[in-house]
């Protein structure tokens, strides 16, 4: 989490909100609604989506066809959100998401991006030496697995659909969701049992 806002920036924010109110551009109600949507977003939504895709073939098909609709179906609020693209990991291909230009991130289903995702180090290294970055996260991939780095530069937000780990046969969607982390949806880690 970022440092708490300073008194000066809060005072500035109050003035901005008052000006927007006075001009009739944004109401307090609209701001409260947006804030509620933002607060509701957390990696639990993304984890639920992955677990459901692993256990429900119809939901998997929806997720691959229309990420936004699948996110809505899992309880995310996608009103006004960018398109959601889904990157499916396979035994031969692993995806890693980065935004080299800024910090584009699927907030509706993962919440606020972590500090490292926004860092210059991650943004510059993920495209240049993805295998070294993954190794630092303790993520070991077989030699024949291709790494596909996805630079999120425009009008989509991207989530990784990780592979369901062995040893989870017969697990409920709820139990599966508990092993799907935010980091696995960005692609720096893979779910482990």
């Amino acid at each position: 989490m970022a440092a708490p806002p300073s008194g000066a920036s809060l005072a500035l924010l109050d003035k901005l909100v008052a000006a927007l109110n006075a001009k009739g551009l944004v109401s307090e109600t609209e701001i409260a609604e947006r804030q509620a949507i933002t607060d509701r977003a957390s990696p639990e939504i993304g984890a639920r989506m992955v677990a459901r895709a692993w256990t429900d073939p119809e939901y998997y098909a929806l997720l691959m066809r229309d990420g936004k609709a699948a996110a809505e179906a899992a309880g995310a609020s996608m009103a006004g959100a960018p398109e959601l693209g889904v990157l499916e990991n396979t035994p031969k291909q692993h995806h890693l998401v980065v935004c080299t230009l800024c910090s584009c991130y699927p907030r509706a289903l993962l919440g606020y991006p972590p500090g490292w995702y926004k860092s210059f180090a991650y943004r510059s290294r993920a495209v240049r030496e993805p295998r070294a970055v993954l190794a630092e996260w303790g993520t070991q991939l077989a030699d024949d697995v291709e790494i596909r780095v996805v630079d999120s530069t425009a009008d989509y937000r991207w989530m990784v659909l990780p592979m369901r780990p062995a040893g989870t046969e017969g697990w409920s969607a709820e139990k599966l969701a508990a092993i799907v982390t935010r980091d696995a949806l960005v692609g720096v880690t893979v779910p482990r049992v």
Partner: protein
Amino acid sequence: MSAAPESSPPRFAPGARVRVKDDWPETRGPCHIRTPYYVRGRMGQVVRPLGAFPNPEDLAFARPAPRRQLYHVLFDQPPIWDEGKAGDTVMVEIFEHWLEEA
């Protein structure tokens, strides 16, 4: 996908070989670019069209923003950086006006 309708169909089909323009608008004045520097002038392959979106280069300056086709373009990772593992790739969203037939 529910991308907004476009005025012209995508010029490039999946599999098309393309080259990203070797253009550096930031040397000519204030601009907003969504094409990362590391792919400029590079050869890539269209994975698929992603739909048409208002051009962010105009949106950033509150100008009328015509819709432009957006593509997922795939690049081999090692030649970009002169390092890395053969077979690894980088996939980037790039707008059509940045792409040329290769």
